[in-house]
């Protein structure tokens, strides 16, 4: 057992199924086995969560993968945050209101079984968005935070069909736009995840991009239809991470390794069997964690995803916690967020490739992950094969598994940024 500096810990989370690793590590006693006594506290929204990590009220938190990147860069609140562990891949969806879906559906190509053919692109949304814009009432979509994966995914999906989601910066005039709606054909705005269904039902927004269970909630409540998951936008995209401040990480190095050990075990447990997933659904449905009905949580957590009511499809990789080395903090994942921040003007200036790589290495800390993994291998709980090979350079191989088929190589961020039709270059 490691000599932890701080056994009593308080972590923040947002009510989303992708905080599962934290809940499992607590409920199965993995934290306790490391000598850690952890309290998990739900937070009102992502900003409060980050503020309380920075102020020290929380020791660490379930964070949007983009949050540590943006915080370290200084978009929004500036603070040095480090990431020793990636909580999951995928797990989001884009849902549109029933009214929008009714207009979209006839334009969506059908498969042989007469059901809509997936992935559904935003091509079918384009005429609706243009008509709404022409009528002076542009479509409004919700996403959860300006630097969330959801914001970038929604933008990616819209832009792939040539719909402008708006910019944060105009390079011609040097004008900064805080809400990010310069030249927007569809206006995006922030709504905290648990309020998405209610905001959609109230008619304030016509669609949203959010994590689970809030897409399945829309299906259950019959208020909207999920049209695409982020797995179809980018296969195995990084989603949430566990983050702490750099200062905290330095002062509590052993504790952070112990936390990472417990989280690795929890992630592996979650991906070990469907049985485990079902048990996790029960844990998450408790009111002090996610609190939604177990059936709603299970709909996406156990390898399926329901689009229209009754149109339930196999989605084995909708939530990935450990497989494909999903819990390893890859530099290339941090860099992808920087490329999207640059694309939409949250980063107003051009930077060389080296700058992107240097930033990623400051934030993502595979060395801590490695130390935790080494301990676990020593204890006989894991083998070296369970982790990425020792000689990896920390970058995932280049991939073009995106909805627009663009090639992303984490070592060449500028090349990727330049390949987009819509976006700053």
């Amino acid at each position: 057992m490691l000599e932890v500096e701080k056994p009593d810990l308080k972590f923040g989370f947002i009510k989303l199924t992708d905080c599962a690793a934290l809940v499992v590590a607590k409920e199965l006693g993995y934290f306790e086995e490391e000598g850690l006594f952890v309290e998990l506290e739900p937070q009102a929204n992502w900003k409060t969560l980050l503020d309380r990590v920075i102020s020290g009220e929380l020791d660490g938190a379930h964070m949007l993968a983009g949050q540590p990147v943006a915080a370290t860069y200084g978009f929004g609140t500036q603070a040095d945050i480090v990431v020793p562990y990636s909580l999951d891949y995928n797990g989001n969806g884009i849902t549109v209101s029933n009214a929008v879906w009714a207009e979209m559906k006839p334009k969506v190509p059908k498969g042989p079984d007469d059901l809509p053919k997936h992935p559904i692109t935003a091509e079918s949304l384009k005429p609706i968005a243009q008509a709404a814009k022409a009528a002076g009432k542009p479509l409004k979509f919700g996403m959860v935070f300006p630097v969330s994966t959801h914001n970038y995914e929604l933008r990616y999906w819209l832009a792939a069909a040539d719909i402008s989601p708006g910019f944060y910066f105009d390079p011609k005039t040097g004008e900064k736009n805080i809400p990010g709606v310069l030249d927007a054909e569809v206006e995006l705005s922030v709504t905290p995840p648990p309020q998405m269904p209610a905001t959609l039902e109230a008619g304030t927004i016509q669609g949203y991009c959010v994590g689970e269970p809030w897409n399945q909630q829309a299906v259950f409540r019959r208020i909207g239809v999920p049209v695409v998951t982020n797995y179809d936008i980018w296969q195995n995209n990084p989603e949430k991470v566990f983050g702490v401040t750099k200062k905290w990480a330095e002062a509590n190095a052993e504790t952070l390794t112990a936390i990472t050990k417990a989280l690795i075990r929890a992630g592996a447990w979650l991906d070990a069997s469907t049985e485990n997933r079902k048990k996790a659904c029960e844990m998450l449905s408790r009111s002090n964690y996610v609190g939604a009905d177990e059936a709603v949580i299970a709909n996406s957590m156990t390898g399926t995803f329901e689009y229209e009511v009754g149109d339930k499809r196999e989605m084995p990789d909708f939530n990935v916690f450990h497989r494909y080395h999903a819990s390893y903090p890859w530099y290339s994942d941090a860099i992808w967020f920087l490329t999207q921040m640059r694309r939409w003007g949250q980063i107003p200036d051009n930077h060389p490739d080296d700058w992107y790589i240097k930033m990623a290495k400051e934030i993502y800390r595979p060395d801590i992950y490695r130390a935790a993994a080494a301990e676990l291998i020593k204890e006989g709980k894991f083998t070296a094969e369970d982790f990425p090979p020792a000689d990896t350079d920390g970058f995932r191989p280049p991939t073009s598994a995106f909805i627009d088929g663009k090639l992303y190589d984490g070592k060449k961020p500028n090349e990727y940024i330049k390949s987009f039709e819509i976006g700053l270059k």
Partner: protein
Amino acid sequence: MSAATAENRFAPSEPKKAKGPRWNPGAITHTLDRLGLGFFSPFVRLAAADEPQKQATEITRNIVLPLIAFGVFLGAWGIASQRIRTEAQKIPSPAETWAAWKGIVDFAKHEGRKAVEFKTRMHGLAWKQEGLAEKYAEQLRDAEETRNTEAVAALTEKVNAARNRAKSLRERNYSGPPTFFTQIKISLFTIAVGFLAATLLAIPTGILCGLSKGFNIALNPLIQIFKPVSPLAWLPIVFVVVTALYSPPARESLITRAMLISAGTVTLCSLWPTLINTAVGVAAIDQDHMNVARVLKLSWLQRIWKIVLPSALPFMFTGMRLSLGVGWMVLIAADMLAQNPGLGKFVWDTFQNGSTNSMAQIVCAVFAVGIIGFVLDRIMLILQRLVSFDEHAI
């Protein structure tokens, strides 16, 4: 002096009646009245056979009418719960609310059991460490006998380490989620802090405003501007102030930042009624009293203590009662925003859960907030009556 007036009030009814009461219920009913529980007095009088007919009517009026109203309310609620629904959510029925309440209680009991289990587990681990310490201590004695200094040093360290581990294990507290009842406790603590701060700020300022016209004129615009400000507007400002000025000594400390933010918001929203009432009360003091003070050559502090405070006390307490009411209402909103783990956070988190029984749990919280608010108001009413000449304050 007020006690005497009360005695007189009941005195005439006793000797005149042909069939008098078996014993004088005056003392008890008077206390009940004082405690704001006047609706129980007819029972006491009935027990004392004091005008049974009249007491029966009183009881019908005081108990049966409210019961009928409550029944009508339950009926209307039941009907509304069947009719008012969105696609997936609806107003919970009284039965569902009762089930949700039992769920809340069960959860608290379950957490209580888990806390006990945790303690037992930690004690078990501590036992092991103590056994280990014992073993090392034995080896240490052997080493001391053989005068093996190196081994002595190493073993002493081991003994101490094991003992320390055992001690910290024994002292460890269960870190479970807060239950509804701990949340109520936190809310009560927060309102106590916020209200105390409001009172300490408002009364001295109010006295100064009441005593000095100039002071009053100077402060009046500020008071009028800040009085109607919503807690939602104060909170971000309080947040910055608290975060800048206060860092809790330890995570476990009772006074957390979130609690202070919440309490600070309560203070800023609730100090106005006390302040204004105090000022009015002080300004309304009989000039004769002040003249007497002058004749007696009382010092400024003595004047405040002997003349101003006693005369203005009833006004102050009326203000404080209003303040507490405002504070309790504000607290729920402040808890939500400051993420202080009180009742407001319970409502917020439950709303976010969006499960089938979330709405019913929120209704439980609504009742809890209402009942606690009512009890707090009664307490203030008692205090108000104790200092006031007005027996019939409601």
